[in-house]
C-alpha cells in the first residue's frame, strides 16, 4: 500500500506547474493514493487547481499567516507533522523543493532521494549525479518513508481531469520565529517562463554585453520563446540570475533550444540534455556545444541572429 503526499509549490497564490510533474512521478510509482499538501496564507486558488489534477485523491490545506512566504524553516515542521501515515513525501526539484525537502527528511530522520528522473519501482529510482554525466539507481529500504524531489524536466505535466476533495488540515507543531521573509525581487517578464516554455533561446558570453542581448530577445520574441543564459552571461551582468540554465541554474526540457555564443561546458549542458532539438550558433567550429547539438551553424552571431530573426 503506498500513499504519497506531494508538497505543492506556489507562485504567490497560484499553483506552480512543478506540482503536476510531482503528480506524474507519483503516479508512475503505482501509488494507491496521492494527496497534495498546500501551505499558504491563501490556499483557495491553488487548492482548487490541485483538486482538478487527474490522479489526485485529496487536497490538504494549511492556511495560516505564517505560511505567506515559502520559508523552509517554517514549512518543514508542518510538512513533517502531516507526513505520518504516508509512505512517500515528494516535492519538486526546484529551488523551493530543494530548500524545504531535505529539512523535512531530516526532521523525519531519513535520507532524501534528490532529482528523481525515472521510477523503477515504488522504492527504486534513477537520478543524475556528476552534473548528469552518470545516472545512479537508488533504492530506499522498505522500513523507511521515501522523501524525494522530482526532477521536473524529466516529467510531463499531469493533466486535468480530477475532482479531489479539499480538506483543511490541522498540523500540531511549533512555528519557529528565527527566520523572517524580507522581500522577493523578480524581474517581471512578459516572455514565456523559462522552465515551461516550449522554445528557449539562450545567449552566452559570446553575446558580449547587456545591450547586445537585445538581439537574443528579438529572436526569442519572433519565435515566441523564453530567454535563458549561460553562467558566464549572468556573471558578466548581461542578464538576471534567474535566467541561468545549467547544473546550478534551471534544468529545462523545451522542444527547441537555441544556444547562441555558448561554448557548451558540461555544467551548461546538464541543463539542456532533455531538450527536444538543440540548435547551436557559435563562431568556433571546435566548441563542445556542437557535440550535442542537433543542428549546428558555425559563424558570427552578429551576422546570423539578425538574418535569422528577419527571415522568420
Amino acid at each position: 500500500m503506498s500513499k504519497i503526499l506531494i508538497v505543492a509549490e506556489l507562485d504567490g497564490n497560484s499553483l506552480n506547474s512543478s506540482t503536476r510533474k510531482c503528480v506524474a512521478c507519483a503516479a508512475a510509482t503505482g501509488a494507491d493514493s496521492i494527496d497534495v499538501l498546500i501551505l499558504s496564507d491563501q490556499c483557495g486558488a491553488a487548492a482548487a487547481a490541485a483538486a482538478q489534477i487527474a490522479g489526485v485523491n485529496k487536497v490538504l490545506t494549511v492556511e495560516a499567516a505564517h505560511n505567506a512566504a515559502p520559508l523552509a524553516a517554517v514549512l518543514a515542521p508542518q510538512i513533517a507533522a502531516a507526513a505520518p501515515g504516508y509512505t512517500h513525501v515528494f516535492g519538486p526539484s526546484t529551488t523551493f523543493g530543494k530548500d524545504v525537502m531535505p529539512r523535512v527528511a531530516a526532521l523525519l530522520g531519513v535520507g532524501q532521494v534528490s532529482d528523481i528522473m525515472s521510477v523503477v519501482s515504488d522504492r527504486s529510482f534513477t537520478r543524475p549525479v556528476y552534473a548528469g554525466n552518470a545516472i545512479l539507481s537508488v533504492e530506499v529500504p522498505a522500513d523507511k518513508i521515501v522523501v524525494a524531489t522530482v526532477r521536473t524536466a524529466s516529467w510531463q505535466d499531469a493533466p486535468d481531469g480530477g475532482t479531489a476533495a479539499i480538506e483543511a488540515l490541522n498540523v500540531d507543531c511549533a512555528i519557529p520565529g528565527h527566520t523572517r521573509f524580507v522581500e522577493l525581487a523578480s524581474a517581471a517578464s512578459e516572455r514565456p517562463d523559462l522552465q515551461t516554455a516550449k522554445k528557449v533561446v539562450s545567449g552566452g558570453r559570446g553575446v558580449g554585453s547587456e545591450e547586445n542581448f537585445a538581439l537574443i530577445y528579438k529572436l526569442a520574441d519572433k519565435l515566441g520563446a523564453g530567454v535563458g543564459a549561460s553562467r558566464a552571461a549572468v556573471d558578466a551582468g548581461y542578464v538576471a540570475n534567474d535566467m541561468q540554465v545549467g547544473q546550478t541554474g534551471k534544468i529545462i526540457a523545451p522542444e527547441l533550444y537555441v544556444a547562441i555564443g555558448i561554448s557548451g561546458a558540461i555544467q551548461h549542458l546538464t541543463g539542456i540534455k532533455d531538450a527536444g532539438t538543440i540548435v547551436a550558433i557559435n563562431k568556433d567550429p571546435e566548441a563542445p556545444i556542437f557535440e550535442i547539438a542537433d543542428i549546428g551553424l558555425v559563424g558570427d552571431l552578429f551576422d546570423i541572429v539578425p538574418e535569422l530573426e528577419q527571415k522568420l
Partner: protein
Amino acid sequence: MEKILVCIKRVVDYNVRIRVKPDGTGVVTDGVKMSVNPFDEIAVEEALRLREAGKASEVIVATIGDSESQQQLRTGLAMGADRAILIETAAGVDPLTAAHAFRALVEQENPDLVIMGKQAIDDDCNQTGQMLAAIWDRPQATFASKLEVEGSTARVTREVDAGLETIEVDLPAVVTTDLRLNEPRYVKLPDIMKAKKKPLETLQLADLVSDTGEQIVATHWATPAARSKGVMVSSVDELLGALKDKGLLA
C-alpha cells in the same frame, strides 16, 4: 561573531570528464584530479571575508572523509582558515550522516555561523546544509548570493527560481552558498607553506555519530544515453529548412 565553521568536501575536480566504471559500481576516481568542491571554496572565501571585515574572529574548516581529504583541508588553511578538523572515515557518508557529524562538531565548537556549499558536484544532492539546520533546530539560508551579518542576525539574499529572495535569520544559522556569492582567492605558494604549520585535528566519525543505518542504497551507476549525432548546416536558410523539417517552425 566568534567562530565560523565551514564544511567542505573533497570531490572530483569540475574540469574532469568523469567515466562510469564498466561494471556499474561507481565512477573512475583512480588517478583523477581531486579538488575542494567549488561551492565549498566559495564558502571558505565568504568566511574569510567576514573575518577580514572584523565580523568574526576565527574560521574553522572541517570535512568528512579519509586521510586524503587532508589535502583539501590544507587548501582551506592556505586560503586563510585558522584551523582544520578532519572527521575521519574510510567509507563515503550520505548527507544525513554528514549532517549528524557536523551537528556533533557544532556541539563541540559552538560556531555562530556554519557555511557550506549548496551542493557537492559529485552526488549533486543539495541536502547537507538543510539537514544540519533541521537537526540543530536553527535557521537555514540556502543558495546565498549575498550575506550581511549585523549583530546577532544575518540578512541573506538567495538565488531562487523566481529571482532574488531576501530573508533575515537569527544566528547561529546555516548558510549554503551559490556561485555568485563571491570569487574565491587564489592560493599563493607562501600561503601553502604557512598552511602546513596550521593546526589540523583528526576526529573519528564513529566517535561523533552512531550509525544511522543505510538510508538510501546506491545500486548501479550507468552512463547516460548519448544524444544522437546532429547535422551541421552552412547558412541561415539551411537552418530554417532543418527546423521546418522537424516541424519546429510553422
